């Protein structure tokens, strides 16, 4: 289907089904039950799942295929957000020009940063990208405040030009009149499901992004990217120039990041420099590795897992912990809560760090490898990893 072989079509369909039914799948627990705490079917969170999914899918094209580890991709995300908000300020709240410009600007930005950073490889490449992103972050707070509005963050004001704005036009982001924040709420008995417009726009773009990434993985270009990761010496002595291939991968992944940034701004028309901070760049690295770098579906799994855990663990406050551990005798309860509280709420990054270490040590291939091991336990022989397979196309 769509020029994909049977296995890739199956993967695409599974991801599509998950995305379409996410509002139901993620709200498994009745709205007023104790366990509703673990629900994730809120517009805000679902949007983050797919937006960061896009970010990680793009990052995987660079890191997963070529092995070049960029520590500065959040810069492109941030630039995309600024570009989108500028479109809202100058034209109107329609998200189409905003999203298009965020992709284009991030693409141009990544041509420059990629062209310079790719003069080096390995750790020096990583450091160069990190330095560029950090510079962008600092510049956003200083020299570039006319463009970024500094610490306040870039937002739309009533006296902005908005030249395409008509009287009585929408004052929130919309797709040709369909407001992003609009939603359908459906109650089924004690369950409640929310179907937000913004989420579905992001989900569709995530599916398109994912489809393009599958095509790239299976293309001659994708093969060359894997050749770069495998052996650059053999590559140059086979008459191939690795440079433009790596730069193309860098720019493509930068455009994915720009799209993600544009979507963040389209869901909430605000852009701040903190989106470019190195922690944000590190997060997409962790997502990709946690899910399984170089696999098709890994980055989506990684992004979903991290955003879900972030939500659950950062919501856990001491009051909640007291309620949960009330069954313990007092002298056990206090130390237990003391320890657990260090890993939850504000301290959830501690939890994330621990989880990341556990995966790297026990499951270097990420969640995808974990899934494959489980399949093998149940006696099913999964086909070779997506990473190295060359199934004939149909």
């Amino acid at each position, binding site marked *: 289907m769509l020029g994909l072989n049977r296995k890739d079509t199956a993967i695409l369909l599974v991801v599509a089904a998950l995305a379409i039914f996410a509002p139901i799948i993620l709200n498994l627990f009745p709205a007023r039950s104790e366990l509703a705490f673990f629900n994730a079917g809120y517009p805000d969170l679902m949007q983050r799942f797919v937006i960061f999914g896009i970010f990680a899918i793009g990052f995987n094209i660079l890191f997963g295929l070529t092995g070049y580890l960029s520590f500065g991709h959040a810069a492109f995300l941030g630039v995309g957000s600024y570009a989108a908000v500028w479109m809202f300020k100058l034209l109107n709240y329609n998200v189409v020009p905003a999203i298009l410009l965020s992709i284009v600007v991030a693409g141009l930005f990544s041509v420059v940063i990629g062209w310079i950073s790719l003069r080096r490889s390995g750790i020096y490449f990583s450091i160069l990208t990190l330095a560029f992103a950090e510079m962008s972050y600092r510049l956003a707070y200083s020299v570039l405040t006319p463009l970024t509005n500094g610490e306040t963050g870039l937002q739309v004001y009533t006296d902005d030009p908005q030249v395409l704005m008509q009287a009585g036009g929408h004052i929130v982001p919309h797709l040709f009149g369909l407001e992003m924040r609009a939603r359908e709420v459906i109650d089924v008995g004690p369950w409640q499901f929310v179907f937000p417009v913004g989420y579905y726009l992001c989900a569709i773009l995530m599916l398109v992004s994912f489809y393009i990434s599958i095509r790239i993985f299976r293309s001659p270009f994708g*093969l060359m990217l894997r050749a770069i990761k495998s052996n650059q010496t053999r590559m140059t002595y086979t008459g*191939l120039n690795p440079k433009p291939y790596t730069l193309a991968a860098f720019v493509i992944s930068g455009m994915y990041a720009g799209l993600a940034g544009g979507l963040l701004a389209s869901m909430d028309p605000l852009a701040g420099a903190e989106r470019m901070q190195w922690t944000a760049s590190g997060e997409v690295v962790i997502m990709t590795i946690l899910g399984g770098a170089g696999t098709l579906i890994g980055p989506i799994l990684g992004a979903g897992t991290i955003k879900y855990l972030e939500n659950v663990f950062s919501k856990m406050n001491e009051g909640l912990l007291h309620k949960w551990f009330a069954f313990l005798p007092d002298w056990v309860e206090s130390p237990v809560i003391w320890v657990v509280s260090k890993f939850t709420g504000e301290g959830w990054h501690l939890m994330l760090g621990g989880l990341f270490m556990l995966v790297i040590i026990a499951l270097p291939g990420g969640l995808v490898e974990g899934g494959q091991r489980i399949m093998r336990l149940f006696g099913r022989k999964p086909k070779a990893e997506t990473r190295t397979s060359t199934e004939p196309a149909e």
Partner: protein
Amino acid sequence: MGILEVKNVNKRFGGLKALSEVNLSIAENSVHAIIGPNGAGKSTLLNVLVGKLIPDTGSVLFDGQSVLGRTPYEINQMGISRVFQTPEIFGDLSVMENMMIACFAKRDGAFTMQAIGSMMKERDIVEKAEQMLDSMNLADKRGMHSASMSRGDKRRLEIAMCLAQEPRLLLLDEPTAGMARADTNNTIDLLKKIKQDRDITIAIIEHDMHVVFSLAERITVLAQGTPLVEDTPENIKGHPKVREAYLGETQVAA
């Protein structure tokens, strides 16, 4: 004039003169061996030919065109392919993918952006790759992870990849180093067959006299960075200067 003309090439590493006044002419469609003791400068000379090293002085012409100042991939696209002392292949990829990369490099050049179409739908590439694997007896290893092959198979895959590029000059750096006698003989037969089947010039750096005398039509003896003599295998065997400088009586007998 030969297909490859090396004139007055000098290369220093700090105080060490690795190549001094090297002159070498390799005739088209010949098998030319370069021999010499360890440290004679054989690998250095090869690295100059493929663009990995730039000589201090001198010129290198391939088919009348200078290769100096060109990058390795440009020189490769001119028609010079290189087989390494330890096989360099794409270890993370399957045997078939390795072959396909070489076929793409031949058909599309150093860089083309084909990011959407499926590589398995490139019928001409798939067919050529399969045919090359077949001719090297690697067809049954098609889907194998190439890093997990035996050393001999890796060597054959590397040679197959070079041949898929249809080079005019094939350079081999000690292709039988570290091989058992049986594998060495297989490699000799393979190279003979390669030579028989097509118009190709082969330049081979070798330590193993058995290999050299089975294959070469001309031999250049390199010692301390300078060509000592160049002649046919028969004459080299009997050459007193060569015996004294390099071969040693026992090895010639073998």
